[in-house]
């Protein structure tokens, strides 16, 4: 049987088409992108140990000095007064108190 020439071979080979990469490949390879606000709920911050210790000591010192230099609390403001509790005097009994040596 007569073999193919170059042009015929190329024409035949081009009929074998390969599929494109499936979409599932992207999901397997590319890292999932999350919204910035999701970081507020799930994000983490890496802090070097010396920095963390220094931050804790600074916070403790701040709290200590804040409490020891705490100002005395101001006088409590007077409670509001309601006139509903006041009752008129039912029987007035005036009494005159004079000096002991009056009239002498």
């Amino acid at each position, binding site marked *: 049987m007569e073999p193919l020439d*170059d042009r015929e071979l190329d024409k*035949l080979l081009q009929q074998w088409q*390969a*599929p494109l*990469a*499936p979409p599932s490949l992207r999901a*397997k390879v*590319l890292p999932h992108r999350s919204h910035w606000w999701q970081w507020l709920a799930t994000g983490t911050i890496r802090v070097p140990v010396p920095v963390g210790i220094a931050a804790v000591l600074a916070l403790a010192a701040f709290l200590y000095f804040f409490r020891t230099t705490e100002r005395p609390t101001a006088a409590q403001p007077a409670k509001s007064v309601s006139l509903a509790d006041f009752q008129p005097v039912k029987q007035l009994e005036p009494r005159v108190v004079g000096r002991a040596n009056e009239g002498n």
Partner: protein
Amino acid sequence: MTEAEFRSAFEQNKDVVYRFAWRMCGSAAVAEDIAQEVFLTLLRQPGRFDSARGALRSFLLAVARNLVLKRWRDDSRLDELEDQFATPPIDLEGRETADAVSAAVASLPPLQREVLILAQYEELSLEEIARTVDAEVGTVKSRLHRARENLRQVLAPLKSRNVGRSISHGTFGRS
């Protein structure tokens, strides 16, 4: 490599890498696994790619090629890597032209198959193919020539669309 650079590399080369693996292995699942491994290699070890030694496409195809060979070794098909072996008969009866071509290419020795796929379908230059398969340009030329000669014989029945017969061939020559 930044995330943006990696995404760009993936978008530009995912189809090339997948197609190459698919044609070499003949399996969509295996091709996807290999393509995934190729890009994860780039992500984890970006320093392995040296732009001074060639294009990123060649590097990724070389990684894919090594993964394909590794799978063959793991499957104890290492002997098939040799360029000289008795090819099984190719039954073209009832096959569409594309299937017949696929079977013919799959029947080539792997070292011929890979250079044919890279040259014919991915249109790499001989220098790029040589870098990808880690061989001399002259060796690549020889393998490509032998691959095409073998295909000329194997696919000859398709010349007149006379595909209704089974063809058996002897041995392919060493490249």
